[in-house]
């Protein structure tokens, strides 16, 4: 089947599915979706963003976003990168072995710390859960389904947090971890425009998460303040946004001028 994948060129009607942008999507899913959009833009592969309330259930792995290309459905950034590579497009081919190892390690760092922190904040911090997550997650559904679905998801996420020993952390510790991660990313980026000499999937992933954190209004500003402490990271986000999302109104992840705070949530 990988042969048939490679044989077909990238179709015009490729689509990326995520949840409803204004009412439903949560911080972590928005970050992941933006990362994939950025990656595809960097590869010059056009894709339409389609918002559906049941996107999570349509996804083959239950995780978002997923892309529908030809007759294939692939979800999550890792498999999407592999899929795109099978079609002959790759951003990291020019890297040597040691650089590839480094890129993979930094991508794991972002998943391990930033994504987990986002999940913690939106599902384990009681205030955020009550005021933002529950209303948003269940918004397409009538009562009592909305409450049932969001409690079910919350229980699932909390189980996972417990297994990886994050359940015992306080919010301050989680923010500390975010700071440590941003510090590492900032050090690694330095004064360069990208993490390596040209954009790679790592840049897409970091952009997806940091931009979302910077532009999402939560209960407090603490999370975005952690990222703002590092000026090269905010400049990085601005640069990627202008370069890959600037011209197209439809694909733009923002609805007004950067880098002001925007109410993606609430």
């Amino acid at each position, binding site marked *: 089947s990988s042969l048939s994948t490679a044989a077909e060129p990238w179709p015009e009607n490729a689509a990326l599915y995520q949840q409803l942008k204004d009412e439903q999507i949560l911080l972590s899913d928005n970050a992941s979706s933006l990362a994939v959009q950025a990656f595809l833009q960097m590869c010059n592969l056009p894709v339409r963003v389609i918002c559906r309330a049941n996107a999570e259930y349509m996804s083959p792995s239950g995780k978002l976003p997923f892309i529908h290309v030809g007759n294939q459905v692939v979800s999550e950034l890792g498999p999407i990168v592999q899929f795109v590579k099978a079609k002959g497009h790759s951003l990291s081919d020019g890297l040597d072995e040691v650089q590839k190892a*480094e890129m993979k390690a930094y991508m*794991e*760092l972002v998943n391990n710390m930033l994504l987990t922190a986002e999940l913690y904040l939106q599902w384990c911090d009681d205030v955020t859960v009550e005021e933002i997550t529950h209303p948003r997650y269940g918004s397409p559904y009538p009562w009592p389904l909305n409450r049932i679905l969001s409690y079910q998801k919350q229980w699932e996420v909390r189980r996972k947090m417990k297994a990886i020993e994050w359940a015992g952390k306080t919010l301050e510790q989680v923010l500390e971890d975010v700071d440590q991660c941003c510090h*590492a990313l900032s050090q690694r980026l*330095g004064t360069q425009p990208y993490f390596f000499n040209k954009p790679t999937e790592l840049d897409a992933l970091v952009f997806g998460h940091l931009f979302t954190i910077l532009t999402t209004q939560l209960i407090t500003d603490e999370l975005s303040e952690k990222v703002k402490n590092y000026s090269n990271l905010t400049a990085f986000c601005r640069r990627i946004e202008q370069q890959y999302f600037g011209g197209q109104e439809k694909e733009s992840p923002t609805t007004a001028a950067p880098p002001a705070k925007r109410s993606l949530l609430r």
Partner: protein
Amino acid sequence: MAAPMELSCWGGGWGLPSLHPESLTVMAYAKFSGAPLTVNTINNSWRAPKGDMPVLVSEDTVISQPAKILNFLRKQKYNADYELSAKQGADTLAYIALLEEKLLPALLHTFWIEAENYCSVTKPWFASRIAFPLSLYVPGKMSREALNRILLTKGGPPLYSLTEVEAQIYRDAKECLNLLSKRLGTSQFFFGDTPTTLDAFVFGFLAPIYKVCFPRVQLQEHLKQLPNLCRFCDDILTCYFRLTVSGHSPAGQDTADANLQKLTQLVNKESNLIEKMDDNLRRSPQHPPRKLTTLKLAAGGEESSPMSRLSP
């Protein structure tokens, strides 16, 4: 000076000071940074483990996870990363994340979930180090926690059965080992000539895979095809853990000792011959041959040490 620090952790075997990756990481870091730790390995006569190992106790502070313990040691000025640049510090964090995400699931699986390994090696070993009746309960609990962790983090769709999850985590682990091998290349440690936090973590994760003799060893076989990683583990064991003696020696250790005895005798015979030859050369300015009598003192130690002394 600093207050005395005590580390409680799981003991060792098969030439390792500890079988438990996290305990091993902390012990390695302490050696690298010169922190004076008193290591108490858990055995039957010790207090039952209260929670997760390893645990560092210093005066009134009790700290329990490796990352936190290392932070504490750094605050006490035992810092193995002193000479690292900021970028190298960032790389350390990234590679540790890689180890946790890609290597740890397979490591847990090899120790705690693979049925043959668990029943014949892991469970008896851990049970023998915990007081009855906890020995009936704790290994099972650790095994369940390991399975839980793997299923929750790696086990979602599209992987629907345990065998598919297992195949995926071993693929990830082998790829991770390959990446580590490429990153290490020919250097002695990951950041040059002195070991750092990253070396402690990599050693902590790799050495148990490398040394413990399991019936099902696909990860160990893959690791043995990466000679620079094996050399990395052996170097740290011989340089930093030369004098460690584990409290209990499993059967494997005993046969190793017997072999070591035989090897020592052979080597000593050789050394007598060499001494006679060397008497003739004594006039020239050369080092006298290193006395090999130190081999007899290396109890429960390295079967590799006589080999390393014989090779120039």
